[in-house]
């Protein structure tokens, strides 16, 4: 590489890295009416590092102490205290201190369904706990600003069965009359990308597909008969709650239908899909209304400002790795510094910009481990280069053979660790899934940086000094004197 080309590349790379460092790590500030937010502040955190939201669901017939306090005396007389809550006398006999078995069974079903729904949401560190035996407390991490928490918490507690119908359901009788769509007709629901935002995908069984085609066909023909409009509306209900509606203009005979409501975020579409999935098995359906009063915002479970401190510690150690490399490998350390910064910024870009990645305690471990991987294999390559030079090879030959010598192990370790994290990501849920995803990205970036980027930077810098050997701080092995 010529000196001029090298200078140009050094300037370009330095400017790009400096710009990315600014975008990545500068604390947020305001410019006029605009707020500048760094990439680091855009990283989604788990409940342990970033806090989250919780709410308490009260089933029908159960009141909180504060709700009980504001009721009139007549209503209060219909309730009896049970631990810190108040149960309706219809479900709780205060004298014998027994709770109605039917209520208990329904409540257990409700808890199981709610747990399954929140699990399917894929929240990291989500927890579902019982409070005073008959209320349910659900904690989730901080979610996308565009998600309506109220809607999400309400939808995920919907009771009743799944109905796909051509008319609205507005009384309980109508609900009973509407056909129930269970696992014999619907095999599952999921989320798919749409032109704008996200869509809910509903998969039918073969029987369900036929039934759905019949339904849409009859809707189209009846709409043609009425002729006031060329389309009819199909409604999807869970119990008495309308979760989706779609305009039908022709018979729909297909295995999967995609309904794109106004879902700007994946979470909104996933909430509907989770609710549909949880009511397909008749045994999992519950008929108990679950309501909540407030959604609380809570601090990180590992302590206030933990994320900032953890980031600071990790930053100091990254700096230590760079300083060590500069001190030990001189010129090669400079190439490592640029390579490491490239790796770090690329990882930050991925973690903050890829939707749905959440960093929690496991994510921190993954970042640290992939940093160790990147650092370790870079040092390994530099040691090999130094070793090759010491044996008497020329500088260029040493660099080539040093990198070549470390190639096999570097590739092997990265392949195995990438495969391992891919499997962990695909199979696991929650904290391990996010941890493995971050480690997978970190490992792939480490492979790219160790095998290509570092080498490129080394050649870029090597073109500059007159004394390249001194630049890399290389020494030859002292030849033994022949006696």
């Amino acid at each position, binding site marked *: 590489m010529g000196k001029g080309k090298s200078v140009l590349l050094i300037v370009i790379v330095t400017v790009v890295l400096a710009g990315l460092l600014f975008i990545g790590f500068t604390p947020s500030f305001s410019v006029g009416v605009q707020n500048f937010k760094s990439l680091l502040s855009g990283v989604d955190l788990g409940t*342990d590092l970033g806090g989250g939201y919780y709410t308490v669901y009260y089933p029908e017939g159960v009141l909180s102490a504060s709700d009980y306090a504001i009721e009139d005396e007549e209503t209060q007389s219909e309730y009896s205290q049970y631990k810190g809550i108040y149960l309706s006398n219809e479900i709780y006999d205060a004298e014998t201190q027994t709770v109605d078995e039917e209520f208990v069974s329904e409540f257990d079903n409700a808890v199981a369904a709610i747990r399954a729904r929140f699990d399917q949401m894929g929240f990291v560190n989500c927890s579902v706990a019982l409070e005073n035996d008959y209320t349910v407390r659900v904690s989730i991490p901080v979610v996308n600003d565009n998600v309506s928490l109220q809607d999400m918490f309400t939808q995920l507690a919907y009771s009743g069965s799944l109905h796909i119908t051509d008319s609205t359901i507005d009384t309980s009788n109508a609900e009973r009359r509407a056909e129930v769509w269970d696992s014999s007709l619907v095999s599952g629901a999921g989320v798919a990308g749409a032109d704008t935002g996200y869509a809910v995908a509903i998969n039918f069984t073969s029987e369900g597909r036929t039934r759905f085609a019949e339904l849409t066909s009859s809707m189209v023909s009846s709409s043609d008969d009425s002729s006031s409009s060329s389309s009819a509306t199909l409604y999807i209900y869970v119990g008495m709650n309308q979760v989706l509606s779609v305009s039908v203009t022709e018979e729909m005979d297909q295995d999967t239908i995609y309904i794109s409501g106004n879902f700007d975020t994946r979470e909104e579409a996933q909430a509907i899909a989770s609710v549909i999935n949880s009511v397909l098995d008749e045994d999992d359906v519950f008929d108990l209304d679950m309501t909540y009063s407030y959604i609380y915002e809570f601090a990180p479970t590992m302590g206030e400002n933990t994320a900032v401190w953890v980031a600071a510690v990790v930053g100091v150690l990254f700096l230590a790795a760079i300083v060590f490399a500069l001190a030990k490998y001189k010129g090669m350390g400079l190439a490592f510094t640029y390579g490491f910064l490239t790796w770090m910024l690329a990882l930050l870009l991925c973690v903050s910009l890829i939707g749905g990645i959440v960093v929690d305690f496991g994510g921190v471990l*993954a970042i640290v481990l992939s940093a160790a991987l990147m650092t370790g294999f870079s040092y390994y390559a530099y040691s090999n280069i130094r070793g090759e030079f010491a044996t008497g090879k020329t500088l260029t030959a040493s660099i080539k053979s040093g990198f070549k010598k470390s190639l096999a192990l570097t590739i092997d370790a990265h392949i195995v660790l990438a*495969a391992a994290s891919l499997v962990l990501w695909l199979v*696991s849920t*929650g904290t391990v899934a996010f*941890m493995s995803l971050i480690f997978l990205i970190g490992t792939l970036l480490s492979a790219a940086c160790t095998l290509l980027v570092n080498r490129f930077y080394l050649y870029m810098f090597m073109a500059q000094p007159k004394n390249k050997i001194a630049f890399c701080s290389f020494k030859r092995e002292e030849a033994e004197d022949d006696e």
Partner: protein
Amino acid sequence: MSKAFSKKHLFLCLAISLALLVAGAFVFGFLGFSEDSTVRDETVVRVNGFVSQLSEEDRGEFIDFCENYIESEGYGVITVRYARDTSWTDGACEFVIAASADAYEQAELDALSEGLDTAIGTLTSDQIPDIETWVDLGIHVTVVESENTFFADYAWRAAVAGAAVLVIAFAYAAIRFRPGMGLGILVGGVHDVLLTLALIALFRLPVGVTLIAVAAFSLLTSLLFNFAVFGRMRSNFRSEDWKELPAREAVARSVKESRRTVFTGAIVLAAVAILIGVVGVVLGLDLAYAMIGGLLAVIVSAYSSLLFVPALFAAIKARTDKRRAERAKYDYVSDRERKKREKAEKQAVGAEE
């Protein structure tokens, strides 16, 4: 000849690991893992309502008042939390008074709740500005017994994924390196994860879902360190000089060469764990405990990749080399036999002529 990876050494490693695993399993079987604040059952005194309308300073005083009252009644307050409703209407101060859901009789808790409610009613605006107004509008005291659920689904899925990872790592190392090395990586991975979990159970480290993250971290660290050691062995064993070395000697020398790499990695990871752990001591103990778990994973993986797994592989290599040598010996005998026969045949042909 090196004595580092003798049979005695392997048995010693196995005995240590087995003893720790059995002790850990015993503790886990009887007591389970110690749970951190995110997953443990709790008895909580919750004071909620218009607490949200107090300024931060006044709320601090209000929380101190409640905490002092609870403690004056003979209950220890383990943790104090505050959460605010997203619409700013309601605020909830929570005082954790026991790390279990059935620590006290209901009558005792009712008395505590009523007592605190009455005490809050006696607060005047001289003590906390405007408190009387907010109490009139509604500040309620309840005692909540919270029962958390075990994260069984997460744990099982992670365990299945971990098993799949080990099979893949074994297959890769067995094909790319040697079958014995693949076996070493497989056994090492299982050993490291189980030993880390056993130590967490033995030391009664409070853990929550972080336990699964620590186990996954342990597995990945184990793979990294073991591949570093076996990678060095593979490149060494290719050279003719090394082929002549006895198995245990060759393994010992290779381990010595890769010791620096493993130590560097282990020290970096341990330094992170210790520093973040220290931050955890100041900010929240859950972080410190989780980091101790991470530190244990690093120590176990380093020990395993430098002592246990090489000792196991040395035993396998010694046996394989011996078998190979014997096979070569048999070939040699048969070769001699063949030559004898050829000689005899020639003699027979010569005699006939």
